[in-house]
């Protein structure tokens, strides 16, 4: 197990947003989290990435407890994420967005930066080369110097995934990567996700509403409703689970 949550619970005052959630993610897994709106999916992500501190429970990355660590520490330890509502650095160029993600792997000090020493130049060149490699993979290298706010929506989504990968993660969390995409773009995206998993040899956990994408891409699915795990298993099992059907469509009238 690379990522494991043990009974994580998040309470906001009297509201239990997430209740005793157990999620397991293996070395190279591709796992989905689904559930109706407000089920607590994004809250789970926010706990794993350290934006919220879970009220109870533990989160293990490679056996190391991550609870209470600063989000930047958690990213440096190997968990990267994208956001439901795209959070790019909007006024910066595409290239700078990627270069920023390399921040924690950069090895020169402030003085080297100011005096533009050799180590600064060597490191900057390396960062730039690596950024361009990544942009090429994501088909964004022609737009490298464009301001990211001006990219079309689908490309902004892709850039956000590329930026998350630039932090060199072991686990990638994707929060509704297909939101607002048309069917063509969604199909492309599912290929991209599969390919990223294979090429970068990382584990991916994704939240998604687009059932086609989830069923097509994920090996295992967790279904969450009102903060509680109601089902888990392979896509085909989930599709026929009466509890899941109830959560999405409601009960049959008797």
């Amino acid at each position, binding site marked *: 197990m690379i990522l494991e949550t043990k009974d994580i619970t998040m309470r906001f005052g009297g509201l239990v947003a997430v209740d005793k959630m157990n999620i397991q993610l293996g070395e190279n897994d591709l796992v989905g989290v689904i559930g109706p709106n407000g089920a607590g999916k994004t809250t789970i992500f926010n706990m794993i*990435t350290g934006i919220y501190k879970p009220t109870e429970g533990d989160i293990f990355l490679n056996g190391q407890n991550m609870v209470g660590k600063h989000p930047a520490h958690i*990213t440096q330890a190997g968990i990267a994420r994208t956001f439901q509502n795209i959070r*790019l*650095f909007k006024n910066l160029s595409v290239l700078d967005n990627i270069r920023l993600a390399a*921040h924690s792997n950069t090895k020169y000090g402030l003085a080297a*930066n100011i005096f533009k020493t050799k180590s600064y130049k060597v490191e*900057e060149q390396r960062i730039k080369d690596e950024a361009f490699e990544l942009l090429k993979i994501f088909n964004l290298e022609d737009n490298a110097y464009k301001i990211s706010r001006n990219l079309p929506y689908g490309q902004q989504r892709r850039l956000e995934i590329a930026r998350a990968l630039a932090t060199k993660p072991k686990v990638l969390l994707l929060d509704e990567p297909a939101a607002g995409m048309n069917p063509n773009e969604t199909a492309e995206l599912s290929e991209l996700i599969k390919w990223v998993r294979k090429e970068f040899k990382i584990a991916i956990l994704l939240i998604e509403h687009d059932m086609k994408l989830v069923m097509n891409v994920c090996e295992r699915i967790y279904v969450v409703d009102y903060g509680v795990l109601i089902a888990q298993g392979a896509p085909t099992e989930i599709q026929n689970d009466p509890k899941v059907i109830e959560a999405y469509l409601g009960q049959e009238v008797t």
Partner: protein
Amino acid sequence: MEYFAHLALSAGIFIILSVSLNLINGQCGQFSLGHAGFWAIGAYTSAYYGVYHPLPVPDFINLFIGCGIGFICAALAGVIIGVPCLRLRGDYLAIATLGFSEIIRIIIINLDIVGGPRGFTNIPNWSNLGWVYLWVAITIIFCANLVRGTHGRAIISIREDEIAAESMGIFTFKYKSLAFILGAGFAGIAGSLFAHSQQFLHPNGFTFMWSVIILLMVILGGLGSISGSVIGAIILTLLPEVLRLMGETIANWRMVIYSLLLIFLMLLRPSGIMGKKEFNLPFLREPR
């Protein structure tokens, strides 16, 4: 001639102040209104050194020592104010820093050793136009190089999106503090140069109004643009004087015209003269 030299000198000092405030307000996105406070700390500490404990070395070395003292003391003040206050955001930070700069001024008024409300006199004249513009160049090069490295990019990412910056592995508090401390430090240098060229300091020269005017220079030039801050500082230093030279009627109405020009400029170009762009000479540009 002396009049123009004096104008050029104050323009230079305001360039240092606006470029350093741009680091805090424009590049890091933290709304600070306490720049006059840091400026005052730099000016008074450096003047104190000059009046009471000058070393027997040539003037220009003494000036550098004074600038160093100004930088260190203002940066230390930046640490003291920054560490507790940078947890605040937006307007709240602005009010906290504003309060801080007023506290500095009141402390100075009550310090008899630096003249208190009478003003600090007999400060040695170590500075001149050349030294001021040397520091202008140092400040601009420092800030321009900073934003082209990983530390400067981290500072800018805080302005863009703090949550995203944290989830990219950037310790936002550390870089907020860095921007704040460096900005304060350069304001201290401006203070030192100011003290040693004016030879006279008065606490009323560092009121809240000056923080606002420096902020105006930054906003007028374009929040986040170094070249914009330089242009903003030059325009706002020269404008009242140029209007003064344009006949009696205009001279009498110059502050009204000055305000109207500011209003119209903000209506026509809300993002400032340069926006977030930089004026770059071809050989300075990043190779593509």
